[in-house]
C-alpha cells in the first residue's frame, strides 16, 4: 500500500464563470506537513475548498485521490468521513445549535470515534484545557458571537476531536493575537503528535510554522503551483516576497 495520502493530479477548477486553479498537481504522504503560500488571490483557499468538495467550485479537469479512493466527485460529508478536515478562514455561525451537542453529533456519526457520553465529555474537557477554552463555551451556540480567535480555537477543538488523516488549515493563524497563536500552534502540534495526521497549512505568516517540521513548501500564483521545495523556501519567501514567482508566471504567460 502506498504511503501517499492525497494525490492531486492536473486539477483545474473554478466558479461557473471564472477559472481559478490551473493544472494543479500535488501529493501529500501520511503524516507530512506541507505549506501552501502565495500572494492574496492566488487561489490557495480555493484549492483547500476544492479538496474539501465545496460545490461552489466546479472541477473542469484532473482528479483528486485520497487514501486510494477517487474523491473528485464526492460530497463534502463523505470526504469528511473519509478523513479530510478543513479549518475555515471564517467559520460560519450556526444559531440555535449548541456547540457541545454539535461536537457529540459529529463524533457519534463516525464508527471509529463512537464512545460513551462520559468518555466523550472527558475527551472534550481535555482538549478544552489544552486550548484554554472555558467550559462555558460548550453551552453556547456554534460559533455564534465568538471572536475571530475563539472561532479558530473551536476549529482546533473539532480537529482534535475528529482526528482526521488530513487537515487543511486555511489561514488558521490570521487575526490571532500572540497568545491565541501560541495556543493554536500547540493544538496543531498535538494533532501532529497524537493523530500522526498530515497537514496542508495555508498561511501568510511564518510564525505558525515555527513549531512545525515542514516537509514541503509550495508556492501558488494566479492559480498555478509555480514552485515547491524544502522548508528553506519559506525563509526565502519571507525575505524576498513573491515577486520572483509572479514575474516568472507573467513571463510564462506571455
Amino acid at each position: 500500500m502506498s504511503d501517499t495520502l492525497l494525490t492531486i493530479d492536473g486539477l483545474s477548477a473554478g466558479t461557473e464563470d471564472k477559472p481559478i486553479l490551473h493544472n494543479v498537481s500535488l501529493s501529500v504522504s501520511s503524516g507530512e506537513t506541507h505549506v501552501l503560500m502565495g500572494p492574496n488571490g492566488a487561489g490557495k483557499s480555493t484549492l483547500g475548498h476544492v479538496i474539501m468538495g465545496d460545490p461552489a467550485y466546479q472541477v473542469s479537469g484532473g482528479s483528486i485521490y485520497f487514501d486510494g479512493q477517487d474523491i473528485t466527485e464526492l460530497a463534502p460529508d463523505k470526504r469528511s468521513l473519509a478523513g479530510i478536515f478543513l479549518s475555515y478562514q471564517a467559520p460560519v455561525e450556526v444559531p440555535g445549535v449548541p456547540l457541545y451537542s454539535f461536537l457529540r453529533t459529529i463524533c457519534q456519526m463516525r464508527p471509529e470515534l463512537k464512545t460513551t457520553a462520559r468518555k466523550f465529555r472527558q475527551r472534550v474537557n481535555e482538549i478544552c484545557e489544552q486550548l484554554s477554552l472555558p467550559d462555558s463555551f460548550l453551552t453556547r451556540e456554534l460559533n455564534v458571537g465568538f471572536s475571530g480567535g475563539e472561532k479558530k480555537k473551536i476549529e482546533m477543538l473539532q480537529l482534535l476531536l475528529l482526528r482526521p488523516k488530513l487537515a487543511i488549515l486555511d489561514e488558521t493563524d490570521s487575526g490571532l493575537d500572540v497568545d491565541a497563536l501560541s495556543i493554536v500552534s500547540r493544538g496543531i502540534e498535538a494533532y501532529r503528535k497524537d493523530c500522526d495526521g498530515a497537514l496542508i497549512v495555508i498561511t501568510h505568516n511564518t510564525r505558525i510554522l515555527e513549531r512545525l517540521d515542514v516537509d514541503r513548501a509550495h508556492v501558488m500564483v494566479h492559480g498555478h503551483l509555480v514552485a515547491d521545495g524544502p522548508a528553506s523556501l519559506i525563509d526565502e519567501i519571507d525575505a524576498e516576497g513573491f515577486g520572483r514567482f509572479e514575474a516568472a508566471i507573467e513571463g510564462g504567460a506571455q
Partner: protein
Amino acid sequence: MSETTERKRSEVADVDRSLYDFVMSEEGYERYADGLTPDIVRAISEKKDEPAWMLEMRLKALDVFHEMRMADNWGPDTSGLDMDHISTYVSPKTKQARDWDDVPEDIKTTFERLGIPEAERESLAGVGAQYDSEIVYHNMREEVAEQGVIYTTIEDALHDPQWEPVVHQYFGKLIPMRDHKFAALHYAVWSGGSFVYVPEGVTLSYPLQSYFRLNASGAGQFEHTLIIVEPGADLHFIEGCSAPKYYEANLHAGAVELYVKDHARLRYSTIENWSKNMYNLNTKRATVGADSRMEWVSGSFGSHVSYLYPTTILQGARSTCEFTGITFAGATQDLDTGCKVILNGADTTASVDTKSISKDGGVNTFRSSVVIGAKAERARATVSCSSLMLDDISRSDTIPAMDVRCGSASVGHEATIGRISDDTILYLMSRGCSEAEARTMVVNGFANPVSKELPLEYAVISRRRRFRTSTCRPRRPGTTCASTRFPSRSRRPSPKARSSRACRASSTRSRPASAPKPPHGSWPRRVTPATSRSRPA
C-alpha cells in the same frame, strides 16, 4: 442531487399531518343549513336557551356582518371562502360529559388519538374538548375547583345565575362586533368555547387546556373563549386545534377575550394545526392591568389561510406583554400572522419575538403593530422577527408598524429574512453531516429558541412521542422541539441568549424589514402598512 437526497430534504421541518387527518362519520348529527339567516341565528340561540340579551346581540351582529365589507388590500386571498356553503352549526348528538366514558365512542377515539385524556391525567388542571360546534367534555380537578376557579363553557355560565351577569359584563366588550367582518360573524353564530374565572390571589400550578376539533366538512367553528384573571392570580391556559383535511373550505372564526387584572399573570399558549383547507380568521385580545404580565405563546402550523394577530392592551402601569410565536407555512399555505401591542400605561414593556419558516411555496407574512399612547411615559417595546425560507419558491414578508406618541418611550425593531446559506451547509457537511442533516440542524437551530416555549408536552405530542419511540421514527423538526419536562414559567430566554440572537441578526444578511423585497415579483396588495387597519376599541 440524487432522488433520495431530494426526498430527505423535503422532509425538513415538515409537520406530520397523519395525526390529524382522520375523519369520523357525521351520521346522526344535527347540522344546520349552509349560509347565514336570522332563522339560523335564532335556532342556535334557542337551542342554547340563551338570555334575551344574547339573542339580541347575535341578531345585531348578523346585521353588522351583512353591512360590513370584506377588508380588501389586506392579507391573503379569501375568495375561496363562500359563506353560503358553510354550515355555521354542527352538533354531535351528545350531552356534555365530565367523564370520558360518557363521551360517544368515535368522539372519544378522536380525542384519544390526539392525546387529550392522557395529557389531562398527566399534566393538566382541567380540560375542555370541543367537537364541531359543541363542547363534548369539560372537567377540572377537584382541588382546582375548591380554590374557586371556574372553568366551564360560556353556555353553562349563561345558565348559572351567579355567572350570567359576569359573562354579560365582559362578553364582547374587548372585541367589539364591529372590529371586522368576521368578528361580526362570530358574534352572530358563536358556539362553544370556554369561560375561565380565576379568583383573586389564586395560582394554578397546572395549565388548563381547551381543545377544538372540527370534524365536519364545509363547516365553521366559532368558539368564544372568555378568561378573567382577578388581581394577584396566575393562570396558564392552552388552546389546541386541529381538523382533518377536506376539499371544501372550512372556517374558523373564534374570539378570545382575556381580562388580566392588576398584579396578575396569564400565559396563553396556542398550538394550531388546522388542515390545509381551513380559513383561520381568529381574533384574540387581552387587556392587562397594573403590574401584570401577559404572555402569548403561539405556534401556527396549519390552515390554508390564517389571519391571526393577537392584540394586547397594556392599560395598567408597569404591565408587561411578551409575545413568542412561530409560524410554519408549507405548500398551499398563506399565513398572515403577527401581533399588536398597545402600550397605554406608564413604564409598560412589550417584547415580541417571532420566527417563521416557509417551504414548498408556502407564504409567511409577519405583521406587528406597536402603538405607544401619549401617556405611556418610559414605555419600551422591542420587536424581533426572523424568517427562514427553505427554497426559492417560498415567500416571507415582514411588515412592522410603530406608532409612538410619547417622547420618553423607546422602541426597537429587528428583522432578518434569509435562506439557509450555502456556507452554513458546507460547514456542517465538511464536519460529516449529510446535506439533509445539515438542513435539519439549521432549521431546528432557527426554530428552537421559540419552539421550546410551545407547550407540546400537553398537546398532541405526548401521544406522538410514545408512538415514535415504539417505532423509532426519525425525529421531525418543527413538531418535536419541546422537552418532556414540565416547563417552568420562568423558562424565558436568558439575557445572554437574547444578546447572542442580536449578534446573529446583525451578521445575517438582513435588510430593513419595512421594505421587504419580494423574492418573486411583487404583490401590491401586501404593501398596506399594518396601521391602516382599524384599531381595536
